[in-house]
């Protein structure tokens, strides 16, 4: 008798025990259980929830690895004044083991806390409710470390994960029932609860906050900072980074959001695997471009002059908006979440367009919330069912009309 059957027998023997869902979860995660359905004929697709989740995680891995290098690069750039990248994406100054080491040891704890706490709660709820553990947290757990600043304290992340999973997901009935994207709920919680750790010019560079505290304690050191491009623009200052830097990702920001190039690759992979919706990605970009163009036109028409506090962000070339901040990451990995996005094809166009449109709107008009993408996606998550409702009703109406014409 093999291990597989042993495990199966173990499960049968302990049927009805309280802790069984937890065991089944690990079992399903490691092996394919040899349980078959007994009634009727079933057509089973190979792309079950687990595979869907794994595909999304695979699409995010390049961003994660790039984020590790970038964390070290930004750290060394700010602290030791190393040479800035010059030779395109494969600059040797960027891909050094030293850079990787700094980032790796900072980011791995974030990943572990995110998964440890999140899955822990999933297990607890599975045992209370007596159902199988859902795989829903696998993607969220990966998204969370990618959308927080590198220096976020681990306990804050843990508190936010508890809040996000319980209030954002479990109260609605668990995976597949949530209204809001759990990863963004977690980020929004952090953003409103601990704003000093989520914005400003210190948190994006590993060690900058600690350096500040050391200075406050009386040590004679130079303060370091690394502001995100959105933060710089909101204050109306000149941006020091080129568009190429923004596209390739050699800029300060949340861990996974900086490299638009790698996010695009991940997005293409998701589209190719038929998991992410290209409609949402495309229409979000369109929405952002339209809003950006409107702002550019307003500036060109002379309505907003340099004295206005909105000038910096409004005069940014519209296509820069696609490259900076979390826009690319949000639209590719967050807005496309199949549970919280619009379900109908037509609805996806409206939904995506509004996500892009509102993101840039919030970005420009509310510099206190530099990350408009997060709020825009959460807002549209709430409206997604409404959009779907009207799309479906519109279709019903159209068909009724057609029926009338035919029968008349």
């Amino acid at each position, binding site marked *: 008798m093999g291990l597989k059957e042993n495990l199966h027998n173990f499960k049968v023997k302990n049927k009805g025990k309280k802790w069984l869902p937890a065991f089944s979860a690990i079992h399903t995660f490691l092996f394919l259980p040899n349980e078959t359905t007994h009634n009727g004929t079933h057509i089973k697709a190979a792309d079950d929830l687990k595979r869907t989740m794994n595909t999304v995680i695979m699409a995010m891995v390049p961003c994660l690895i790039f984020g590790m290098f970038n964390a070290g690069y930004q750290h060394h750039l700010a602290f030791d004044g190393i040479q800035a990248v010059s030779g395109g994406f494969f600059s040797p100054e960027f891909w050094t083991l030293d850079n990787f080491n700094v980032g790796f040891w900072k980011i791995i704890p974030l990943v572990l806390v995110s998964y440890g706490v999140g899955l822990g709660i999933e297990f607890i709820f599975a045992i209370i409710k007596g159902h199988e553990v859902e795989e829903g947290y696998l993607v969220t757990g990966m998204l969370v470390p990618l959308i927080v600043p590198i220096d976020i304290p681990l306990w804050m992340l843990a508190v936010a994960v508890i809040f996000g999973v319980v209030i954002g997901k479990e109260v609605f009935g668990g995976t597949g029932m949530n209204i809001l994207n759990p990863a963004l709920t977690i980020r929004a919680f952090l953003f*409103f609860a601990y704003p000093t750790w989520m914005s400003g010019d210190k948190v994006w560079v590993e060690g900058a906050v600690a350096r500040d505290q050391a200075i406050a304690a009386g040590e004679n050191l130079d303060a370091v900072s690394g502001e995100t491009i959105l933060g710089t623009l909101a204050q109306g200052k000149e941006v020091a980074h080129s568009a190429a830097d923004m596209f390739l990702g050699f800029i300060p920001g949340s861990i996974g959001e900086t490299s638009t190039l790698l996010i695009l690759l991940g997005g293409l992979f998701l589209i190719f695997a038929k998991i992410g919706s290209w409609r949402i990605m495309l229409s979000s970009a369109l929405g952002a471009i339209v809003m950006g163009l409107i702002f550019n036109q307003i500036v060109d028409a002379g309505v907003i002059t340099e004295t206005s506090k909105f000038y910096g962000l409004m005069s940014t070339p519209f296509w820069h908006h696609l490259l900076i901040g979390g826009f690319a990451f949000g639209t590719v990995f967050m807005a496309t979440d199949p549970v919280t996005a619009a379900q109908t094809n037509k609805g996806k166009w409206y939904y995506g367009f509004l996500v892009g449109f509102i993101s840039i709107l919030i970005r420009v008009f509310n510099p206190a919330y530099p990350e408009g993408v997060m709020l825009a996606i959460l807002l549209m998550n709430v409206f997604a069912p409404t959009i779907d409702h009207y799309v479906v009703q519109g279709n019903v109406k159209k068909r009724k009309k057609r029926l009338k014409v035919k029968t008349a």
Partner: protein
Amino acid sequence: MGLLSKKDTKLITDPLADNNPITIQVLGICSALAITAELKASIVMSISVLFVLGFGNVIISLMRNIIPSKIRIIVQLTVVAALVIIVDQVLKAFAYELSKTLSVFIGLIITNCIIMGRFEAFALANGPWKSFLDGIGNSLGYGVILIIVGFFRELFGSGTLLGFPVLGDPIAKTGLYSIGYENNGFMLLSPMALIVVGIIIWVQRSRNKALVEDH
């Protein structure tokens, strides 16, 4: 059984839990969200509502047979308004700072649905003693939730309770703050009050399944 009969006791205890005005009847939510960032404000608000609802119920109950039913809402409003003005003036005279914190919300007790709700549902149909007990019970039920919400919001949002720094000093980094703890700014925002009330409702309904509505 001395002071209260079994039925009368129920008038007070029911609204504390299984027929709570906030968590079960979902009345008076606005003030529960607005003024619970501090425990002190929650307590004063509860006492104010206790006064207004207790006496308001008695007054309406005494007048119940002479109020023409067509204009009863206006009469009720006048009674509440008179009581609220008393509360407001007392606060302004003896606790000016607090009355500034509560600002418009004392005045808004007039529009608190619990009060009009109890007048309509109870005081118009029952005698003054019973109405008084009902008013006390319901405002205590309201107060309990306000104080629970205020407790958690002030503790986690500002690290204080009734103004005393129980978790240490966030600026001098003493107590919990010395190990890196920080106040949760989200707790001070009204949406978090809604979430805390939601959690109370959740806990209450999972303890007593009879409260869960069918769909």
